[in-house]
């Protein structure tokens, strides 16, 4: 029984994307080392925050362990976007456009590399957290849910990276997005629970910032246990980012191929 052409196309592109990602230490190392370094610095430097009345845990490490998953997802913007931008810059995308390849196959295949990297990141962050003594309130099933949420986040932000690459066609422009996404991370409930942020305008921004809910979704499994609302918000927002990102990337792909 032969496989459908779409599956073959996705498989070929996914294989290329995964191999390309795994062959680039420049993509893998920073996306693992940088979040772990910030985790180490923040969990040491902000330990005093656990003495604040109402802080949900006595371990700042457990509280902060949610952040690397979000940072990892942000790295997928750069990694997916830069790879595609390079394909555009070198003319590889133009050659693909001459084949009967479907747009959905192209986008799905291109995200395979960042998804594998996302899985590697999630596993590394969990191992580091466990080795450093972080708590896992939701146990082993919670760990699996963290991995699943992390992958949906990676998919969503990776799709945004593809969109950026297709719109700009420039790796430099995609790299320039990195600080923009870090603004979203820093203006969220990353370092303190929202109810403990005492600056009103900052708490307001953190409340409207979707990144807060992605971090809180992961954090709930580490600190609280099973919190249906936090998980629904986390998965809902991650899925929404993925749908919006893929739709935007599909439209941008169509428009880029027409221009080509």
């Amino acid at each position: 029984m032969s496989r459908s052409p779409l599956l073959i196309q996705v498989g070929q592109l996914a294989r290329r994307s995964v191999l390309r990602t795994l062959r680039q230490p420049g993509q893998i190392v920073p996306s693992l080392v940088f979040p772990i370094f910030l985790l180490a610095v923040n969990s040491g430097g902000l330990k005093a925050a656990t003495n604040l009345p109402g802080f949900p845990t006595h371990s700042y490490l457990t509280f902060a362990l949610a952040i690397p998953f979000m940072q990892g997802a942000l790295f997928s913007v750069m990694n997916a976007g830069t790879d595609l931008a390079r394909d555009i810059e070198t003319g590889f995308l133009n050659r693909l456009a001459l084949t009967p390849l479907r747009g959905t196959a192209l986008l799905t295949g291109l995200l395979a590399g960042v998804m594998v990297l996302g899985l590697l990141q999630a596993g590394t962050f969990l191992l580091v957290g466990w080795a450093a003594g972080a708590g896992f309130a939701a146990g082993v099933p919670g760990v699996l849910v963290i991995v699943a949420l992390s992958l949906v986040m990676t998919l969503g932000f990776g799709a945004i990276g593809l969109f950026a690459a297709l719109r700009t066609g420039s790796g430099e422009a995609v790299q320039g997005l990195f600080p923009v996404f870090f603004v979203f991370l820093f203006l969220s409930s990353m370092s303190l629970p929202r109810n403990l942020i005492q600056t009103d305008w900052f708490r307001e921004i953190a409340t409207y910032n979707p990144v807060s809910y992605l971090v809180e979704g992961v954090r709930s499994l580490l600190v609280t246990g099973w919190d249906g609302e936090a998980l629904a918000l986390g998965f809902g927002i991650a899925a929404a980012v993925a749908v919006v990102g893929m739709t935007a990337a599909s439209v941008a792909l169509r428009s880029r191929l027409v221009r080509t």
Partner: protein
Amino acid sequence: MSRARYSTVARAVAWRTIHNFLHNPAFLVPSIIFPLFFFTAFAGGLSAISRAPGFDFPTGYTAFQFVFVLLQSAAFGGVFTGFGIARDFESGFARRFMITAPHRTAIIGGYALAAMTRALFTWTLLFAVALIAGMNVDGNGVDLFGLILLAMIVNIAATLWAGGMAMRFRTIQAGPLMQIPVFLVLFLSPVYVPLDLLSGWIHALATVNPATALLDAGRGFISGDPVKVALAFAAGLGLALAFSLWAVRGLRSAEAAGS
């Protein structure tokens, strides 16, 4: 005569670097936005930390974080200048500098002058935003002069560090080598809370980190209660001196490579 030539070269290099900085949004915007953003994120988002038991900084958390962001912008201003030096080597422009300059160390002096000018530009905005945000300043004019002088020394030291690296590698790909050590030194210091509230490995590292003395002295200046002033200036000047040798050797390496 000789001194005049030295200052002419330094001013020419500085003028070009400052001109590029002011006329290219890709250089100008990050230099301004990043310090303001870190100030906003740290002072706004973490102010509750000042209520933690043992946190003793009466001037307020905004001023506490302002000093970190000021020194961070000083250091990163120097690193960004290093990126510019590397770019000049990549594009071949530095080669023209080297051919025309009778005193090549004046090229380093010019870049350092440009870095200081950039830093002053950023700090003016940072001070304005911090004061608008309600930052308390308990130090007097002399204290504030001490704070700016300290930040200036950090800026020069970082420029010499990054410049030395840029002249050795002569490519912008060396950017992480310039940036990451500065990032590590800055963040392995008492960024969010005073040293006494740190514990474990980060306390041990922060205790021996020269950035801690710089931060403590800076925070002392803004609160009108100067502490560790001699240690901070000795650390800052020591780093600047060591990195000036590093930068001059980098220049010699670039000369030997024919760049």
